[in-house]
């Protein structure tokens, strides 16, 4: 199918419309409609990825409206471009969307009864927006799609518990500030280049030598600032923990793995495709100091994660730390760092999905995700906990999970570009993650409470009644997606070379420094 790239956006869009039209008649159709449209979306995004792999230039280009690209700079009409990076991210977005759509049956009915048509409408439009961000080749179209993704996100989060409204309000303010910065930056870009097409902008920058132009420099700052706010990079992270904590289960499962990661994709896209390597790294002196900001970000986020006593909140701070990893991987300006960043987007999406699906099941069965309510969970829900901990081990970076391999590339990047501060921070944060997850394991398996008092009678007694430790697994509609996500974490880890090969094909033309000095 030659136009499968545009169907990636259209299937969820029409699914959303079908949900809101059909949902008025029967609320029961929403779940099957969204699962079906997500299945179709995943199918076309796999198709697009293979088209991109097989094409000689490794990209699929699609002009909406059928306008020609012959002009220089190009930019009449909007282009959808799926190079290998975009196609991979689109597949991650739609894959996560499918798994969460499968998972959503029980939690959506419980948390937003009677609002299923609206909920699924927003849910599918969110995926449409995020997948569009990954595929668009137009800087302004990117802004529109960011707005689609952001607005649906606000709606989806605000449907949560009572405190979700306040959290959403914070998110709206910061999200809007971020989007405005981005829009202002795009305005400057258009002012200086006269086109909005991403490749077109870079062509003009290179043809007219706009490397030292103040307006372009400020455009770069504004775009970068906007994206950093949107991705919850450390000083701008304040909206994230509350928003993801108080959101409905399905929402946090969808947003946590995707939103921040897609924004990091946007940053990589801006750095490589729009501004170009030479502009981003060589003609801006201050980008050299960004890894130091990353160090602060990772350390603070990791320490704050350590201070949490609730799984969902702890995971939210983990996301902030992981954002630091990926931002750092880009700004250490190194081939391996960028491979690590891109690969970490993919693996972080998988493992965060795994963890949030697990946390959602714990919330569903135990009505709390506080550390004190975890005792004996392994006896109660062994499969859920295995899935959850596969995600956790991947965050720590244990082989053969995908988290190990992406972190390996990030650390390699830090070493070859001699950014020791970044490398040491990664090591430090890994130790923090170990503490975080083994503390959870301890809480589940040992009869010890917060202050170290023994609650059981010894010899493996958890101090719980038989009733409390009886086998009581989550409903299959929640368990299967979790195990699916866990197996994806393992599979991406085992077949990491296949993924990295594609990323390398994408990164080759940019001539990034490999930093190897053998002579």
């Amino acid at each position, binding site marked *: 199918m030659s136009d499968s790239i545009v169907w990636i956006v259209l299937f969820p869009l029409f699914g959303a419309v079908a949900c809101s039209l059909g949902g008025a008649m029967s609320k029961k159709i929403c779940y099957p409609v969204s699962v079906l449209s997500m299945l179709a979306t995943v199918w076309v995004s796999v198709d697009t990825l293979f088209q991109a792999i097989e094409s000689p230039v490794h990209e699929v280009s699609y002009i909406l409206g*059928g306008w020609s690209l012959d*002009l220089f700079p190009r930019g009449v009409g909007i282009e959808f471009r799926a190079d290998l990076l975009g196609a991979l991210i689109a597949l991650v977005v739609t894959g996560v969307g499918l798994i969460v759509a499968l998972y959503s049956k029980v939690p959506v009915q419980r948390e937003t009864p009677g*609002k299923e048509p609206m909920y699924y409408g*927003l849910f599918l439009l969110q995926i449409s927006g995020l997948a569009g961000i990954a595929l668009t080749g137009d800087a302004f179209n990117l802004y529109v799609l960011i*707005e689609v993704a952001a*607005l649906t996100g606000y709606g989806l989060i605000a*449907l949560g518990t009572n405190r979700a409204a306040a959290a959403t309000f914070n998110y709206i303010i910061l999200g809007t500030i971020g989007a405005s910065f981005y829009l202002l930056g795009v305005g400057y870009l258009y002012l200086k280049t006269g086109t909005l097409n991403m490749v077109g902008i870079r062509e003009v920058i290179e043809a007219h030598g706009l490397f030292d132009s103040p*307006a372009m420099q400020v455009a770069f700052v504004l775009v970068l600032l906007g994206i950093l706010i949107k991705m919850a990079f450390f000083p701008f992270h304040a909206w994230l923990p509350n928003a993801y904590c108080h959101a409905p289960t399905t929402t946090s499962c969808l947003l946590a793995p995707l939103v921040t990661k897609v924004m990091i994709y946007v940053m990589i896209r801006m750095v490589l495709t729009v501004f170009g390597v030479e502009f981003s790294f060589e003609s801006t002196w201050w980008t050299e100091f960004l890894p130091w900001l990353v160090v602060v970000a990772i350390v603070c986020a990791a320490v704050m994660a350590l201070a949490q006593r609730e799984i969902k909140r702890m995971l939210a701070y983990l996301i902030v730390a992981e954002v630091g990893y990926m931002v750092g991987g880009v700004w250490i300006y190194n081939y391996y760092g960028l491979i690590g960043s891109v690969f970490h987007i993919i693996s972080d999406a998988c493992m965060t999905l795994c963890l949030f699906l697990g946390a959602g099941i714990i919330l569903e069965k135990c009505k709390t995700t506080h550390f004190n309510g975890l005792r004996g969970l392994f006896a109660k829900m062994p499969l859920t906990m295995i899935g959850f901990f596969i995600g956790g081990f991947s965050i720590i970076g244990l082989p053969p999970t995908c988290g190990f391999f992406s972190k390996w590339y990030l650390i390699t990047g830090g070493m070859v570009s001699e950014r020791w501060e970044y490398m040491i921070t990664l090591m430090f944060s890994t130790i923090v993650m170990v503490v975080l997850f083994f503390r959870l394991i301890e809480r589940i398996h040992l009869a010890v409470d917060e202050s170290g008092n023994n609650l059981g009678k010894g010899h493996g007694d958890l101090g719980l009644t038989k009733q409390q430790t009886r086998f009581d697994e989550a409903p299959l509609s929640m368990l299967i997606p979790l195990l699916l996500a866990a197996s994806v974490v393992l599979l991406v880890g085992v077949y990491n070379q296949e993924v990295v090969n594609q990323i390398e094909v994408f990164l080759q033309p940019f001539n990034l420094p490999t930093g190897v000095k053998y002579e």
Partner: protein
Amino acid sequence: MKKAAFILILCIGLLLAWAAKDFPSWGDPQSPASSSPVASHFIANTGVDTEVPNMVTAVLADYRGFDTMFETVVVFIAGLAVFSILRGGPKNRTRDREFVVDFEPDLIVTNTVRLIVPVIQIFALYVLAHGHVSPGGGFQGGVAMGASFILIALSWDLKTALARFPIERCFTVAALGIVIYAGIGLLSLFLGGEFLDYAHLAKIFPVSPEMARYHAMLGVEIGVGFTVTAIMFALYASLSTDGRMRDGL
């Protein structure tokens, strides 16, 4: 904290001022934005490509129609989000709003509105239908149309307005607007073009490809108008009653 914010704003202001010295001068025909082949293409070829005299509409609904489709979706999302958050009234409300709306619709006001509303609606349709000739279009026409329903709600009460435009129908109409817009795009996809390539509609309608673009632009504007009208009113109805769809202003 306030001082820090002030200094931060000052820094950003200085940064923007520093960038401004690099701007092309006001109205400079040689500036990249005016002289770039892209802008020139729009100016030179709008008439040839689409037969639409209004270039702004041609850029909005045809050259960059995909953006506009998602802008319409954004409007739809806003309505959907507000409606679903507020629906069923506030959770855990400790104190229900005490005042009972106890007033008779004013004779002068209602009669004036009775006269004005048809005029507003006709004007809204005119703005919508003439969007590709003169300033106007789906967003503007839709807002005027939605405002006419809000005016009914303001001068009588919300019940009267909801009797004419029930809230469920709002969302059906809004979704329909997106179906119209995306459907026109899809039709051109199925006729062998790219998504939103209206010229291919000439294969099933007895017009030239240029006129097909012209008419398809009107079609998508109508879709936009549907969505904006319905969402304007749905937003008003949801927000003015805390989502309970009764009492209110």
